[in-house]
């Protein structure tokens, strides 16, 4: 049993090393993942920002959490893409005929997704700092923010795994992320929900992005997020469990 466990960690670390090499050898993926959210941030801060009444004198502070979620939502489409190509090409067949733990293959992709998304999040935060983003939060709130973002990435990564494992075409494998990227628009990420029509507002206030954005925003501004953080965690864990179940099912169907 002990060796099985040891082998599992070796397997996962080898798989992680493999796909991290893939990422660093195609840096364009990191760039495409960060460029769109950064462009959005520039657009909203310097073009629309003046006209938006967000109830804060520093709109970058208001905007950043939503932008980070957007970056993660577009980042995970590469996870689906990488999984899809692995399944299509012979390399997964080779792994499957070797005495490797099968879940290690998926976990390798999942960890890679977390590391690469963390990289793009850091890049975006640096750009935001240059644009005037400031936070009064201490170490603990920052760790909490990191924790929420990792959980959010995990949840969406397993959603991406479903797409990557069950899609029939490469476009299908990455197209699922478009609605996720746009979800922040219909939330409190860009503007407060008060001004929205009733139906839209009801949706915006009850979808996962709003509670996550509100939690991160209040943590970064040195406040306490209250109920929002529990709703946010419940969403992330809930999505993760459901997606994990279906991803594993799709995986077993494939192999």
């Amino acid at each position, binding site marked *: 049993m002990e060796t099985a466990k040891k*082998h599992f960690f*070796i*397997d996962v670390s*080898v798989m992680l*090393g*493999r796909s991290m*090499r*893939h990422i660093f*050898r*195609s840096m364009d993926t990191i760039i495409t993942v960060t460029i769109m959210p950064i462009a959005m941030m520039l657009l909203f801060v310097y073009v629309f920002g003046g006209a938006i009444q967000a109830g804060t004198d520093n709109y970058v502070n208001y905007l950043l959490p939503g932008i980070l979620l957007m970056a993660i939502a577009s980042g995970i489409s590469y996870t689906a893409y990488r999984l899809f190509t692995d399944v299509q*090409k*012979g*390399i997964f*067949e*080779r*792994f*499957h*005929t*070797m*005495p*490797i733990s099968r879940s290690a293959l998926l976990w390798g992709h999942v960890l890679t997704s977390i590391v690469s998304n963390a990289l793009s999040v850091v890049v975006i935060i640096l750009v935001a700092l240059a644009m005037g983003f400031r936070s009064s939060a201490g170490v603990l709130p920052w760790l909490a923010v990191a924790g929420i973002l990792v959980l959010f990435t995990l949840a969406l990564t397993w959603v991406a795994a479903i797409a990557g494992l069950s899609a029939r075409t490469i476009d299908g494998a990455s197209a699922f992320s478009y609605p996720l990227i746009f979800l922040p628009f219909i939330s409190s990420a860009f503007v407060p929900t008060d001004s929205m029509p009733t139906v839209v507002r009801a949706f915006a206030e009850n979808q996962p992005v709003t509670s996550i954005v509100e939690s991160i925003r209040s943590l970064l501004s040195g406040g306490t997020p209250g109920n929002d953080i529990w709703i946010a965690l419940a969403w992330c864990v809930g999505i993760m469990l459901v997606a994990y179940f279906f991803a594993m099912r799709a995986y077993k169907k494939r*192999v």
Partner: protein
Amino acid sequence: MQFVLTKPIQVRGLQKSYKQLQVLKGVDFEVEKGSIFALLGSNGAGKTTVVKILTTLLRPDGGSAAVNGFDVSTQSDHVRQTISLTGQFAAVDEILTGRENLVMIAKLRYLKNPRQVADDMLTRFGLTEAADRRVSTYSGGMRRRLDIALSLVGKPPIIFLDEPTTGLDPEARIEVWKVVKELADGGTTVLLTTQYLEEAEQLADRIAILHEGRIIASGTLAELKSMFPTAKVEYVEKQPTLEEIFLAIIGKKEGK
């Protein structure tokens, strides 16, 4: 405990269907230790399906298959310890270099010195110069060599090669043949599938002809030749080639 006399590969009454289509209708064969066994058949005969079942990628619907004495469905982990597959499409990582591919597989086989293993394989397969180039820059022949090298990491005693030379130029094909012969000489058991009759003729100790989901003939090349109707021997000036045997047997079956 393991039987000393256990044959490396034993297949009995193997059946497999994809939805309505019955691909394998009861396949039987055995492979001797250290021999090269060729599964010969046209496209769609079910060769790849047999290989996928034996390498634990697919589950059979009926019959039994044992590799190194282990049942492929119930003891697949044990099977995976002793086999290695070179599939129809080169199972290499294109973004990694040749060396990185080898090191990766050596690590996944939990070998002590992955770098040394990789170096040895690179030398053995004449890939030392290309070792640190990405595989996406390799030629078809180099890719295939790397593919086979990856399969040999960790010295698995039983190797499956599914159409190892399909799509290769003649020169690369001869290189692959050389490797396969060396393997068998070293005591490795090799099962290969091919649609090239010449390949079976060149390499195999025993040949089985898979046609429409059944083995319709098997034996050594000499045995297969003796099965060929010799009634017209007075008009025939040369020994029949395997190709003629193959076509004659298939023709006979289909005539029924």
